[in-house]
Structure formats: C-alpha cells, structure tokens
C-alpha cells in the first residue's frame, strides 16, 4: 500500500512541496486540505490582481486537473480542526478522520488585526486572500475613499492597487517612515514623496483610535482626534504564523510551530514548512525561503535524505509600477559597518550598501534597481566587494545589460528559485529554445509570481540574442576555470581580483593550464584597464622576457618602427647592435620592420639598452605595426597623408595588449599599397575622406575587411580606431583575432556598438582606452629594471 501523506494547507508553500515531492517519488497517496475553496494560487500576485494588471484567473498555480493527474485528493474549503499525533489521524471540519503516515503542516499565516474598536464593521478587512481581493475590487468605486492601515510592503502594494482602481487612498503608518522594516529613514522619506506624487496620501507617524460607522465603516478616527472619511479600510499590519491547530495538538510552538533543521516538529511523523514555522527563533514572510523549505522537505520525505535547512538571504521588492524598490539585509549600519550612499532626491534615486569588512550585509535600491541582481548575488554570496560604486551601477554604461553580467548561479526569480543558468538553458535549448518572456515563464516559471524579475528575463533573452550568432551556449573560459567569460568579468570586477592566481583560486581549480592562465592574465589587463598585477609564472616565456622564442631557444628582437619609417641613425645603431651581439640573421618583416634573430636571453636587456628603441611587441598578443605607404608626402597618386596618420595611430595604440595580435595599416589611396583591406584594422584615404576597415585577414585564412565607417579627418579616424580597438579588447575572446571577432558578432552589431553607439557608450570606451594607455610603459626599459632575474642565466651562487 502506498504511504499516506496528509498536507494541511494548500498555499504556495504546500503546492511547491507537492510538486517537488512528486518529482522525487510519485508513489505517495496524498490528501490536501485547504481552508480556501480554491486550488492553490499565487498569493504574491494578488497585488497585481488588485491593481488590475492581471486577471484573477492568472494566479492559479495548479488547477484541479493537475491534482487529478497526480492522483492527489484535494479537499478545498475543508479546514482541519484537530490532530491526533499518537494515533496519526487528523479531523476535518465535517468531523471526518483521516489517517496518515506522514503529516505536513503548511498552514501559513494570518493577518495581524490590531485590537481597534470598530474592526468588525462591514468594509474593514485584511488583505490576504483571493476572496478579500475580490471583495475590495467590488467595493472600489472610483472616487470613493480608502484607508490602508500600515505602510509596509503589503500596505503600499494595496494602496497602489486601490489607487489604480480610482480610489482616493490614504495610508496610515505607525512609525516615522514607510517600510521601516526594510528601509532607512532617508529611503522611506523619499518613497513617501514619490507615493504622494503618484496621488496617494501618506500620514505618519499616526495611530488609529477607532473605526466608526453605522454597520458599515464610514470614517477612521486617529488618536490625535483627526477624522478621515473612509468607505473601505484595509488592514495591512503584518502577519502572524497560523499555529492554533498545532498548538491545540500539543506540538511545541513559540511564535511559530517549532521545527528542527529537518523541518520536523516536536511530534513524530509531523513536519511543517512555510510562514507557520519557527526555525531557530526566526519566522518567515517572503516566498523565497518558503520555496526553499518546500524543496528541502520534499527531499527529506521523498528521498529520506538527511539534509538540513539553512535560511538563505532573501530580498524584498515592491511591486508598484514605476516605483522600483529593492531591499535586503541591514538597512542601517551597525557599529563596525560602513555604508555607501548615492542619493538623488529630485530624480527619485537612492542606492545604499551596508558593508562589514568589505562584505555586503545590506542593500537598498530605490528608483533604479538595474543592479539589483548583482547586489542580490553579492548579498547572498557573502563575497568581498571592493568596487562598491560599480556594484551600485556607477561607471557602467547605461545601455549595458546587467543580466549578462550575472553569475550563472545567481537566482533571477527569487519567488520560484530559478537561476540564470536554468533560464539560459531554456533559451539556448538546441530545439525550440524560448524566444519570449512568456515561453521562459512557461518552461522555467521564472517571472510568474511577483514578476519583478521580468526585466532580467528580457535582458537574458536579449543577451542570448546577441550571442546567438556563436550558435553555442556561453562557453566557459577553460575546463580549469569552468565559468563563462561574462561571469568571470563580473567576479573579477566585483570581487576586486587582480592576479591570475586569485582568479584560479576563487573561480577555478587553483592550478590552471598553459591555455587559460595567459587568457586570464589578458582579461585582468583589459578589464582593469591595465591596473592589475602581472605574474610572470602565468605568462608564456615570450611575455616574460619580451622577445620571441625561436626553435633553438634563442630569441628574436623587433624594435618598434612606427609606420614602417626609420632613420639612418636608427639603422646604424641596429647594424652596430647586430654586430655586437652576433645576431644570426637580420630580416625585414611583413609589417615593415627589422627582425634581429638568434639573441641569447641574457643579452636581451643589454641589446635593448644599446638600441635605444622601444619594444615592437612582435612577440605577443598586442598591437603590432601600422603598415603604411608613402601617401601624399611622396606618391604622385596619394590623396591622404598616410605616413603621418600611420605614425600617429601607432603611437596612440602601441603597448596595448589585445585578445590576439592586431595588424594595422594606413594607405594613401585606393591602390592600397599598404594592403589595408586584409588587416585586422585598416584605413584608406579616398578623395576628401578616410575609410576605416575592420576584420581583414591574410594569414591562416584570407578575409576581406568590412567597411566600418567613413570619416573626414585624421582626428576622427583616431577616435573611431580607439573605440573599435577598445571594444575588441573588452569583448574579444583571448586568442580570437579581430577577423574572427568581427564576423562572430556581425559587422552591423559591431558598428552599433562602436561608431553608432550612444555618446555615453563611446565616451566610456574612450575613457577606458585612455586609462589603459596611461598605464602602458615600454617593457624593454621597465622589465629589466624591475625584475632583472627574468633574464639571468643560472642561479646566484
């Protein structure tokens, strides 16, 4: 015979528990008793029903057919009135007894009704059930007056809903500021101003003396004597765990039904979950922890697993259209904490972090909640945050997609416990991947409850659309560092990581390999604009000693020769140096410079000093050369001064590391002697203008470059080139040539993110380009001076 399970309570926690239980073990014979005469519905969504933004029919979580399909007996509208824990049966309101093997109490909570005289008048009601919402909607005549008692989360959502129904709403709040459980005074005050601007009246601090009326409520009288007319009074003064059934059955109760880490009550075979419980002195009022408990209890009962409940951080969001509030953790600092506050009263923006030892322990976002997912991840992750302003969205281009930066395991939909990874999986399924929010909602249930994550889901859809052309789900950096590049970026910037070994330790296997370590080194360089700590042990020998290793273990030296232009003096010195160090070969390179081959490692610093020239970076993934023709300076066909522009361009770019080598060229006319249409980035003079090309190649593969834009002046050329290169530096995958990167994202998308991007985006790219450039120094001088041991032969005796 199947084991018999009785669930008392058919709310959100109860139904979630059943769903999970049947995933684990569908053999249970289950009976569910619910007080309300409906199948399980989404209580969190009632605010939206009240506001009229969704219909009442949409809040049903599981219809009768689901219960039938699972073989679950649903006794809706049938309260349980007694439990006999010794003989293991419950008694329902009709006097029937039902035996169980396991009993789960999910009796939820009851609205707290303060003992105010007149509370029994018609038109005074709490805000908890679908029927109460129906009742309110029926009474909500346009122009009639409503009073909401309590300016907490629920009270404000109720007030908003009634306002949307055309009522004239007054909120009465007991303390100095609204949402005082979640917000500090400044945020609460700002919120009040905004609500009043939306047409609600907020009175605080006030206390209600009594409700008056003839059978039906007509007015509210305050303790100071003020009288407020009211056709409807809604009491939103908090909730209390519903424990009477458990208490009468002799179970251990305090504020809630006391449970242990396995959600077991004091009676054998009796478990409890949700708003009715008390775990280690804590009770619960948000749906997220309740869902966690439901999933856990399904494991415990379904799999007989020994797992312990640990409350996780959960944040509050206010579901009022156009008024975004996100709050979690401490709203005011305790001794030893410090806070970061950004405030724009006129713009209705307030952002605050409370930190302890650089770990976020509290956060408030008002008005602009775009960084809420990142802040939420930081709050729940307990990670060290150094770049606090960035976490609050300062310094991030307004067009950027915060959803893209979320770590994979970040919970996007708190109500349903859906992570970014789950949503991305649904979107990127090889067959029939989700293409709309509705489809994501159907497949993952994300955004189906409170809906506050809908914009993130949209962001993820957009993000997937952007990356869809790669035809593969966001690849991980390496098997040693199994996180996507976007996540790595977020973690590096969010957790202030500046070395490869730190990255490997926090996001990888601690060791890494010869492929990922140089890649991570590059990402640190690019994303921190050069402000990172290089570790020679994680670099290829070329990058350790700034020369190109040859097959015999010697090195080659290529000094920079901007635009391929040299001087007799430089050539003389090169010749002398070649003699002095007995170089094996002097060779002209394809990029119009001179290569000195066969140099011993120990001779490198000496040779560089004798040359008196700077590194050409021919040995690394960086800006290589800007090849040029003689342009208008000498050529009788030239229409643009290609040499000057090539030199200026090389000066502007040199020293910057990139995902791969970048070969460039500037040519003075469409005869194209500098071959710019097969360069990673090339510039061509035409009559009266310059064309900029990107993504050309003539190496392992051949590709004709795409035209990026046409501009009039060399100054404009330099700006567009800086922006294009910086975009590639930030978004290119390590070892991805520009001629792979551009077709991967598509030339139109590349244009949209560079030449056609908004001024804010362009200014940000230019700023990061300049900051990176400001950190460049010539390695041929700097490295031997700083770490001469890199070049020494043998050890110190």
């Amino acid at each position, binding site marked *: 015979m199947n084991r018999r399970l009785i669930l008392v309570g058919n709310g959100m926690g109860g139904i979630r528990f059943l769903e999970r239980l049947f995933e684990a073990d569908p053999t249970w014979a289950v009976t569910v008793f619910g007080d309300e005469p409906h199948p399980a519905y989404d209580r969190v969504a009632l605010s939206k029903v009240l506001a009229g933004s969704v219909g009442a029919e949409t809040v049903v979580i599981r219809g009768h057919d689901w219960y039938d399909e699972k073989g679950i007996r649903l006794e809706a509208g049938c309260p349980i009135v007694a439990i006999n824990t010794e003989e293991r049966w419950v008694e329902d309101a009709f006097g029937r007894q039902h035996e169980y093997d396991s009993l789960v109490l999910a009796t939820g909570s009851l609205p707290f009704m303060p003992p105010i005289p007149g509370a029994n008048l018609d038109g005074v009601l709490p805000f908890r059930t679908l029927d109460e919402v129906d009742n309110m909607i029926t009474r909500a005549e346009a122009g009639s007056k409503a009073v909401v008692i309590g300016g907490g989360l629920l009270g404000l959502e109720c007030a908003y809903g009634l306002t949307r129904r055309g009522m004239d709403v007054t909120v009465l709040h007991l303390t100095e500021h609204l949402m005082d459980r979640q917000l500090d005074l400044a945020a609460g005050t700002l919120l009040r101003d905004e609500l009043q601007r939306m047409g609600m009246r907020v009175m605080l601090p006030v206390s209600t003396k009594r409700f008056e009326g003839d059978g039906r409520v007509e007015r509210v009288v305050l303790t100071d004597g003020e009288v407020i007319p009211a056709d409807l009074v809604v009491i939103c003064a908090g909730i209390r765990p519903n424990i009477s059934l458990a208490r009468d059955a002799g179970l251990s109760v305090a504020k809630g039904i006391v449970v242990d880490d396995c959600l077991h009550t004091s009676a054998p075979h009796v478990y409890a979950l949700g708003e009715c419980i008390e775990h280690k002195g804590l009770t619960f009022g948000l749906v997220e922890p309740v869902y966690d408990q439901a999933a856990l209890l399904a494991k415990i009962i379904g799999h007989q697993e020994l797992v312990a409940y640990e409350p996780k951080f959960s944040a509050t969001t206010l579901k009022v259209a156009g008024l975004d509030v996100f709050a979690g953790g401490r709203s005011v600092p305790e001794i030893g904490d410090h806070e970061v506050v950004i405030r724009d009263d006129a713009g209705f923006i307030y952002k605050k972090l409370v930190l302890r030892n650089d770990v976020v322990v509290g956060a408030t976002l008002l008005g602009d909640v775009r960084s809420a997912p990142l802040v939420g991840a930081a709050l729940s992750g307990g990670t060290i945050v150094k770049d606090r302003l960035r976490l609050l969205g300062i310094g991030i281009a307004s067009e950027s997609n915060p959803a893209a930066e979320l770590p994979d395991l970040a919970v996007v939909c708190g109500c349903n416990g859906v992570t970014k990874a789950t949503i991305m999986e649904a979107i990127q399924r090889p067959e029939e991947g989700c293409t709309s929010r509705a489809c994501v909602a159907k497949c993952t249930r994300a955004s189906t409850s409170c809906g506050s994550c809908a914009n993130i889901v949209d962001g993820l859809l957009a993000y997937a659309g952007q990356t869809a052309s790669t035809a593969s789900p966001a690849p991980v950096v390496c098997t040693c560092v199994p996180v996507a590049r976007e996540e790595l970026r977020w973690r590096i910037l969010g957790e202030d990581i500046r070395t490869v070994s730190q990255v490997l330790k926090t996001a990888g296997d601690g*060791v890494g390999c010869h492929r990922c*370590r140089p890649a991570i080194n590059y990402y640190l360089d690019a994303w921190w604009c050069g402000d990172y700590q290089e*570790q020679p*042990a994680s670099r290829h020998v070329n990058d350790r000693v700034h020369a190109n290793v040859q097959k015999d273990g010697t090195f080659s030296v290529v000094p920079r020769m901007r635009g391929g232009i040299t001087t007799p003096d430089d050539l003389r010195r090169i010749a002398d140096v070649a003699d002095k160090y007995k170089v094996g070969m002097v060779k002209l390179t394809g990029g119009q410079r001179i290569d000195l081959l066969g140099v011993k490692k120990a001779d490198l610093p000496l040779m560089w000093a004798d040359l008196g020239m700077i590194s050409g970076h021919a040995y690394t993934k960086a800006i290589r050369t800007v090849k040029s023709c003689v342009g208008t300076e000498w050529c009788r066909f030239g229409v643009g001064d290609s040499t000057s522009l090539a030199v200026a361009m090389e000066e502007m770019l040199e020293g910057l590391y990139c995902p791969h080598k970048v070969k460039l060229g500037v040519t003075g006319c469409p005869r194209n002697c500098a071959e710019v249409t097969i360069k990673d980035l090339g510039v061509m003079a035409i009559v009266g203008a310059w064309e900029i090309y990107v993504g050309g190649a003539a190496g392992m593969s051949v590709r004709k470059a795409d035209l990026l834009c046409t501009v009039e002046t060399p100054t404009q050329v330099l700006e567009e080139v800086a922006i294009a290169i910086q975009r590639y530096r930030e978004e290119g995958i390590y070892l991805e040539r520009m001629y792979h990167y551009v077709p991967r994202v598509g030339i139109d998308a590349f244009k949209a993110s560079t030449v056609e991007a908004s001024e804010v985006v362009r200014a940000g790219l230019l700023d990061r380009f300049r900051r990176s450039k400001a950190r460049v120094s010539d390695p041929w001088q700097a490295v031997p001076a700083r770490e001469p041991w890199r070049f020494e032969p043998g*050890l110190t005796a």
Partner: protein
Amino acid sequence: MATLHRAGLLSSLHEGVGQVVEIDGKEIALFRTGDRVFAIGARCPHAGGFLADGMVCGDVVVCPLHVRRVHLKTGEVEDWEVGVKTYSVVVREGEILLEL
C-alpha cells in the same frame, strides 16, 4: 656513486619560473613550485626546447616550443615515448644541492 653538487641559492629560483644550471657539462632545468624544488633534464626530447622557459602548471611544465607536457616528478613526457631525466634535489641552508 652519486654526489651532491651546488646548484645555487634557493632565493634566486622564483616560484613557477624555471632556471637552467650547468653541472658537469649537463644542462639541468630547476623549478620551484610551492615548497618543492624539481630538477630535470633541460631540454624537451621532442624538439629540444628549453623546459625552464615553459609554464609550470601543478606538477607539469609545458614546453614553450610545442606545448609538450613534461612531468616534473617523473620526467615523463605526455604523448612522447622518451622522457627526460630527473634528479634528486636537497635544499640545505637556503642552497639547492643536486644529486648527480
């Protein structure tokens, strides 16, 4: 009989960055990873690359020329029939001594 040869000061051998020493006409690559020092033949048996210039990843050094993976403890070279010689290392009073 094996004897101990002085290779140099431990302090001049940097974590994860190899170094070549010559003892008795033999080229030997030294590596320091964590609290251990390894000594192996200096050149990769595949194409003669200087292993000391390779990147050290855990117990493996990756040859800078063609990314052969050479095991520091055993001298084994992955996907290659010939390995490299390994030498015993003693660190005494800050000095690296090799048993040859």
